[in-house]
Protein backbone atom coordinates (compact mmCIF):
# COMPACT_ATOMS: atom_id res chain seq x y z
CA UNK A 1 0.00 0.00 0.00
CA UNK A 2 2.72 2.50 1.03
CA UNK A 3 4.90 1.60 -1.94
CA UNK A 4 1.96 1.99 -4.31
CA UNK A 5 1.26 5.44 -2.87
CA UNK A 6 4.93 6.40 -3.27
CA UNK A 7 4.88 5.15 -6.85
CA UNK A 8 1.79 7.18 -7.65
CA UNK A 9 3.32 10.27 -6.04
CA UNK A 10 6.54 9.81 -8.00
CA UNK A 11 4.60 9.62 -11.26
CA UNK A 12 2.72 12.82 -10.41
CA UNK A 13 5.97 14.62 -9.48
CA UNK A 14 7.57 13.39 -12.72
CA UNK A 15 4.69 14.74 -14.77
CA UNK A 16 4.81 18.11 -13.01
CA UNK A 17 8.60 18.40 -13.49
CA UNK A 18 8.30 17.38 -17.14
CA UNK A 19 5.58 19.97 -17.75
CA UNK A 20 7.62 22.68 -16.04
CA UNK A 21 10.73 21.76 -18.02
CA UNK A 22 8.82 21.71 -21.30
CA UNK A 23 7.33 25.12 -20.50
CA UNK A 24 10.80 26.48 -19.71
CA UNK A 25 12.26 25.11 -22.93
CA UNK A 26 9.38 26.36 -25.08
CA UNK A 27 9.78 29.81 -23.48
CA UNK A 28 13.43 29.74 -24.44
CA UNK A 29 12.45 28.97 -28.04
CA UNK A 30 10.31 32.10 -28.10
CA UNK A 31 13.10 34.17 -26.51
CA UNK A 32 15.69 32.92 -28.99
CA UNK A 33 13.46 33.85 -31.91
CA UNK A 34 12.93 37.31 -30.42
CA UNK A 35 16.71 37.69 -30.13
CA UNK A 36 17.27 36.67 -33.76
CA UNK A 37 14.45 38.82 -35.15
CA UNK A 38 15.44 41.85 -33.05
CA UNK A 39 19.00 41.48 -34.34
CA UNK A 40 17.79 41.26 -37.92
CA UNK A 41 15.70 44.38 -37.43
CA UNK A 42 18.82 46.34 -36.42
CA UNK A 43 19.97 45.75 -39.99
CA UNK A 44 16.70 47.02 -41.42
CA UNK A 45 16.78 50.13 -39.24
CA UNK A 46 20.41 50.85 -40.15
CA UNK A 47 19.80 50.32 -43.87
CA UNK A 48 16.64 52.43 -43.92
CA UNK A 49 18.56 55.28 -42.33
CA UNK A 50 21.65 54.85 -44.50
CA UNK A 51 20.20 54.26 -47.99
CA UNK A 52 20.41 57.48 -50.04
CA UNK A 53 17.05 59.12 -50.66
CA UNK A 54 17.70 58.97 -54.41
CA UNK A 55 17.77 55.17 -54.08
CA UNK A 56 14.73 55.15 -51.80
CA UNK A 57 12.54 56.90 -54.35
CA UNK A 58 14.06 55.22 -57.43
CA UNK A 59 12.05 52.71 -59.49
CA UNK A 60 14.23 49.88 -58.12
CA UNK A 61 13.86 51.11 -54.54
CA UNK A 62 14.51 48.59 -51.75
CA UNK A 63 11.37 50.13 -50.17
CA UNK A 64 8.92 50.31 -53.08
CA UNK A 65 5.42 51.75 -52.97
CA UNK A 66 2.82 49.69 -51.16
CA UNK A 67 1.39 48.51 -54.49
CA UNK A 68 4.79 47.22 -55.65
CA UNK A 69 5.79 45.54 -52.41
CA UNK A 70 7.06 41.97 -52.49
CA UNK A 71 8.05 39.34 -49.95
CA UNK A 72 11.52 37.88 -49.79
CA UNK A 73 12.96 35.08 -47.69
CA UNK A 74 15.78 36.20 -45.42
CA UNK A 75 18.14 34.33 -43.12
CA UNK A 76 17.96 35.50 -39.52
CA UNK A 77 20.83 33.41 -38.15
CA UNK A 78 21.45 30.03 -36.62
CA UNK A 79 19.95 28.30 -33.61
CA UNK A 80 21.95 26.11 -31.18
CA UNK A 81 23.06 23.11 -33.22
CA UNK A 82 23.53 25.24 -36.32
CA UNK A 83 19.95 25.11 -37.65
CA UNK A 84 19.44 28.01 -40.06
CA UNK A 85 16.41 30.16 -39.26
CA UNK A 86 14.57 31.95 -42.04
CA UNK A 87 11.74 34.43 -42.14
CA UNK A 88 9.81 36.43 -44.68
CA UNK A 89 10.57 40.13 -45.12
CA UNK A 90 8.31 42.69 -46.77
CA UNK A 91 9.48 46.24 -47.38
CA UNK A 92 7.41 49.15 -48.56
CA UNK A 93 7.19 52.89 -48.15
CA UNK A 94 4.42 55.37 -47.61
CA UNK A 95 4.89 58.70 -49.35
CA UNK A 96 3.55 61.85 -47.74
CA UNK A 97 3.96 64.57 -50.38
CA UNK A 98 4.96 68.04 -49.32
CA UNK A 99 2.58 70.95 -49.20
CA UNK A 100 3.81 73.62 -51.67
CA UNK A 101 2.01 76.27 -49.62
CA UNK A 102 3.91 75.39 -46.48
CA UNK A 103 7.19 77.04 -45.60
CA UNK A 104 9.22 73.83 -45.38
CA UNK A 105 7.49 71.91 -48.20
CA UNK A 106 8.97 68.63 -47.06
CA UNK A 107 8.50 65.35 -48.87
CA UNK A 108 8.22 62.72 -46.16
CA UNK A 109 8.70 59.00 -46.60
CA UNK A 110 8.09 56.34 -43.99
CA UNK A 111 10.00 53.16 -44.76
CA UNK A 112 8.48 49.99 -43.35
CA UNK A 113 10.14 46.62 -42.86
CA UNK A 114 7.80 43.83 -41.82
CA UNK A 115 9.20 40.48 -40.75
CA UNK A 116 7.00 37.38 -40.57
CA UNK A 117 8.32 34.36 -38.68
CA UNK A 118 7.04 31.21 -37.08
CA UNK A 119 7.47 29.74 -33.62
CA UNK A 120 5.93 26.31 -33.55
CA UNK A 121 2.54 26.52 -35.17
CA UNK A 122 2.08 30.23 -34.55
CA UNK A 123 3.04 33.00 -36.95
CA UNK A 124 4.36 36.29 -35.60
CA UNK A 125 4.96 39.66 -37.24
CA UNK A 126 7.49 42.27 -36.23
CA UNK A 127 7.94 45.64 -37.91
CA UNK A 128 10.17 48.69 -37.84
CA UNK A 129 9.64 51.99 -39.60
CA UNK A 130 11.96 54.88 -40.34
CA UNK A 131 11.03 58.42 -41.22
CA UNK A 132 13.01 60.02 -44.02
CA UNK A 133 12.42 63.46 -45.43
CA UNK A 134 13.60 65.66 -48.27
Amino acid at each position, binding site marked *: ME*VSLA*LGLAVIVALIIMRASLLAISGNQW*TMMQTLTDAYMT*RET*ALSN*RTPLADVIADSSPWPDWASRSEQNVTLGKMPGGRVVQASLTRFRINIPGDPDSEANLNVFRLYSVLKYQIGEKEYVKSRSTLRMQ
Partner: protein
Amino acid sequence: MKSPPQQAFPDRVATGFTLLELSTAISLMLVLATALVVIMQQHLTFMEMAQRQKFLTNDAPQIGSLLGRIFNQADHYFVYASHDSAIAGDAPMLSGGKAVRLFFYATDQTTKERLIAVDSSGGTTRLKFYTLHLDGSETSWVVSDKITDATFSASEGILAATLQGPNGEEITYSGGAR
Protein backbone atom coordinates in the same frame (compact mmCIF):
# COMPACT_ATOMS: atom_id res chain seq x y z
CA MET B 1 -13.13 -38.75 15.48
CA LYS B 2 -10.04 -37.39 13.74
CA SER B 3 -8.13 -34.71 15.65
CA PRO B 4 -6.81 -31.49 13.77
CA PRO B 5 -3.15 -31.53 12.72
CA GLN B 6 -0.84 -30.08 15.30
CA GLN B 7 1.47 -27.14 14.50
CA ALA B 8 5.17 -27.85 14.47
CA PHE B 9 5.87 -24.82 16.74
CA PRO B 10 2.70 -24.10 18.67
CA ASP B 11 4.28 -21.22 20.74
CA ARG B 12 5.45 -19.19 17.75
CA VAL B 13 3.28 -16.23 16.55
CA ALA B 14 3.12 -15.68 12.73
CA THR B 15 4.07 -11.93 12.38
CA GLY B 16 6.22 -11.78 9.16
CA PHE B 17 5.37 -11.31 5.44
CA THR B 18 4.97 -14.07 2.98
CA LEU B 19 7.48 -14.50 0.18
CA LEU B 20 4.90 -13.21 -2.32
CA GLU B 21 4.32 -10.01 -0.34
CA LEU B 22 8.05 -9.38 -0.05
CA SER B 23 8.60 -10.01 -3.75
CA THR B 24 5.80 -7.59 -4.67
CA ALA B 25 7.17 -4.90 -2.36
CA ILE B 26 10.71 -5.24 -3.71
CA SER B 27 9.45 -5.14 -7.30
CA LEU B 28 7.47 -1.97 -6.65
CA MET B 29 10.45 -0.35 -4.97
CA LEU B 30 12.61 -1.24 -7.96
CA VAL B 31 10.05 0.35 -10.28
CA LEU B 32 10.01 3.41 -8.03
CA ALA B 33 13.80 3.67 -8.04
CA THR B 34 13.91 3.30 -11.82
CA ALA B 35 11.28 6.01 -12.20
CA LEU B 36 13.31 8.37 -10.01
CA VAL B 37 16.44 7.74 -12.07
CA VAL B 38 14.49 8.46 -15.27
CA ILE B 39 13.12 11.69 -13.75
CA MET B 40 16.63 12.77 -12.79
CA GLN B 41 17.99 11.98 -16.28
CA GLN B 42 15.14 13.89 -17.89
CA HIS B 43 15.75 16.88 -15.65
CA LEU B 44 19.46 16.85 -16.47
CA THR B 45 18.63 16.68 -20.20
CA PHE B 46 16.36 19.72 -19.91
CA MET B 47 19.01 21.56 -17.87
CA GLU B 48 21.56 20.83 -20.60
CA MET B 49 19.15 22.06 -23.27
CA ALA B 50 18.53 25.28 -21.34
CA GLN B 51 22.29 25.74 -20.95
CA ARG B 52 22.80 25.25 -24.70
CA GLN B 53 20.23 27.96 -25.37
CA LYS B 54 21.81 30.45 -22.97
CA PHE B 55 23.90 32.21 -25.62
CA LEU B 56 20.86 33.33 -27.61
CA THR B 57 18.58 33.91 -24.61
CA ASN B 58 21.00 35.79 -22.34
CA ASP B 59 24.40 36.60 -23.81
CA ALA B 60 23.66 37.71 -27.39
CA PRO B 61 21.00 40.32 -26.45
CA GLN B 62 23.43 41.94 -24.00
CA ILE B 63 26.25 42.01 -26.53
CA GLY B 64 23.88 43.27 -29.23
CA SER B 65 22.53 46.06 -27.07
CA LEU B 66 26.02 47.24 -26.25
CA LEU B 67 27.36 46.97 -29.81
CA GLY B 68 24.28 48.70 -31.19
CA ARG B 69 24.74 51.71 -28.93
CA ILE B 70 28.46 51.94 -29.73
CA PHE B 71 27.99 51.47 -33.49
CA ASN B 72 25.21 54.04 -33.67
CA GLN B 73 27.31 56.70 -31.93
CA ALA B 74 30.28 56.25 -34.23
CA ASP B 75 30.76 58.86 -36.89
CA HIS B 76 32.75 56.60 -39.18
CA TYR B 77 34.57 53.29 -38.98
CA PHE B 78 36.97 50.96 -40.74
CA VAL B 79 37.12 47.17 -40.58
CA TYR B 80 40.49 45.45 -40.30
CA ALA B 81 41.76 41.90 -40.45
CA SER B 82 42.93 41.94 -36.84
CA HIS B 83 43.63 44.09 -33.81
CA ASP B 84 47.28 44.40 -34.81
CA SER B 85 46.54 45.40 -38.40
CA ALA B 86 44.07 48.02 -37.13
CA ILE B 87 46.75 49.48 -34.84
CA ALA B 88 49.32 49.35 -37.63
CA GLY B 89 46.91 51.17 -39.97
CA ASP B 90 46.95 48.47 -42.65
CA ALA B 91 44.47 48.60 -45.52
CA PRO B 92 40.91 48.18 -44.25
CA MET B 93 38.63 45.46 -45.60
CA LEU B 94 34.92 45.23 -46.31
CA SER B 95 34.05 41.87 -44.75
CA GLY B 96 35.45 39.09 -42.61
CA GLY B 97 37.40 41.45 -40.36
CA LYS B 98 38.23 40.68 -36.76
CA ALA B 99 38.55 44.28 -35.69
CA VAL B 100 36.74 47.55 -36.25
CA ARG B 101 38.18 50.97 -35.64
CA LEU B 102 35.53 53.49 -34.59
CA PHE B 103 35.80 57.26 -34.72
CA PHE B 104 33.62 59.53 -32.58
CA TYR B 105 33.36 63.29 -32.94
CA ALA B 106 33.60 64.86 -29.51
CA THR B 107 32.02 68.12 -28.41
CA ASP B 108 35.46 69.76 -28.15
CA GLN B 109 35.88 69.31 -31.92
CA THR B 110 38.33 66.46 -31.49
CA THR B 111 37.97 62.92 -32.75
CA LYS B 112 38.07 60.06 -30.26
CA GLU B 113 39.18 56.68 -31.50
CA ARG B 114 38.13 53.30 -30.16
CA LEU B 115 38.66 49.74 -31.28
CA ILE B 116 36.56 46.59 -30.93
CA ALA B 117 38.41 43.40 -31.75
CA VAL B 118 38.30 39.65 -31.35
CA ASP B 119 40.99 38.41 -28.97
CA SER B 120 41.76 34.69 -29.06
CA SER B 121 44.75 34.62 -26.73
CA GLY B 122 44.97 32.18 -23.84
CA GLY B 123 42.61 29.63 -25.33
CA THR B 124 39.53 31.83 -24.85
CA THR B 125 37.89 33.95 -27.50
CA ARG B 126 36.73 37.35 -26.30
CA LEU B 127 35.28 40.44 -27.82
CA LYS B 128 37.21 43.38 -26.40
CA PHE B 129 36.80 47.13 -26.45
CA TYR B 130 40.04 49.10 -26.61
CA THR B 131 40.70 52.74 -25.85
CA LEU B 132 43.73 54.04 -27.71
CA HIS B 133 45.70 56.70 -25.89
CA LEU B 134 47.81 59.49 -27.35
CA ASP B 135 51.05 57.99 -26.01
CA GLY B 136 50.41 54.82 -28.03
CA SER B 137 49.25 52.74 -25.09
CA GLU B 138 45.84 51.14 -24.88
CA THR B 139 43.41 50.05 -22.19
CA SER B 140 40.69 47.50 -22.72
CA TRP B 141 37.69 45.79 -21.22
CA VAL B 142 35.91 42.60 -22.20
CA VAL B 143 32.59 42.98 -23.99
CA SER B 144 31.98 39.23 -23.85
CA ASP B 145 33.86 35.98 -23.42
CA LYS B 146 30.86 33.85 -24.38
CA ILE B 147 31.52 33.92 -28.13
CA THR B 148 33.57 31.45 -30.13
CA ASP B 149 34.20 33.89 -32.97
CA ALA B 150 33.06 37.21 -34.39
CA THR B 151 33.51 38.99 -37.70
CA PHE B 152 32.84 42.55 -38.78
CA SER B 153 31.73 43.79 -42.16
CA ALA B 154 31.05 47.16 -43.69
CA SER B 155 28.70 46.61 -46.58
CA GLU B 156 25.81 48.66 -47.99
CA GLY B 157 26.98 51.56 -45.85
CA ILE B 158 26.31 49.88 -42.51
CA LEU B 159 28.50 48.16 -39.99
CA ALA B 160 27.62 44.60 -38.99
CA ALA B 161 29.01 42.26 -36.34
CA THR B 162 28.34 38.55 -36.79
CA LEU B 163 28.72 36.59 -33.56
CA GLN B 164 29.24 32.84 -33.32
CA GLY B 165 28.03 31.07 -30.20
CA PRO B 166 29.47 27.99 -28.47
CA ASN B 167 26.81 25.64 -29.89
CA GLY B 168 26.83 26.70 -33.53
CA GLU B 169 24.64 29.78 -33.00
CA GLU B 170 25.06 32.71 -35.35
CA ILE B 171 23.56 36.15 -35.01
CA THR B 172 24.27 39.47 -36.72
CA TYR B 173 23.85 42.94 -35.23
CA SER B 174 24.04 46.02 -37.42
CA GLY B 175 24.36 49.74 -36.95
CA GLY B 176 26.65 52.62 -37.80
CA ALA B 177 24.25 54.34 -40.16
CA ARG B 178 25.06 57.91 -39.13
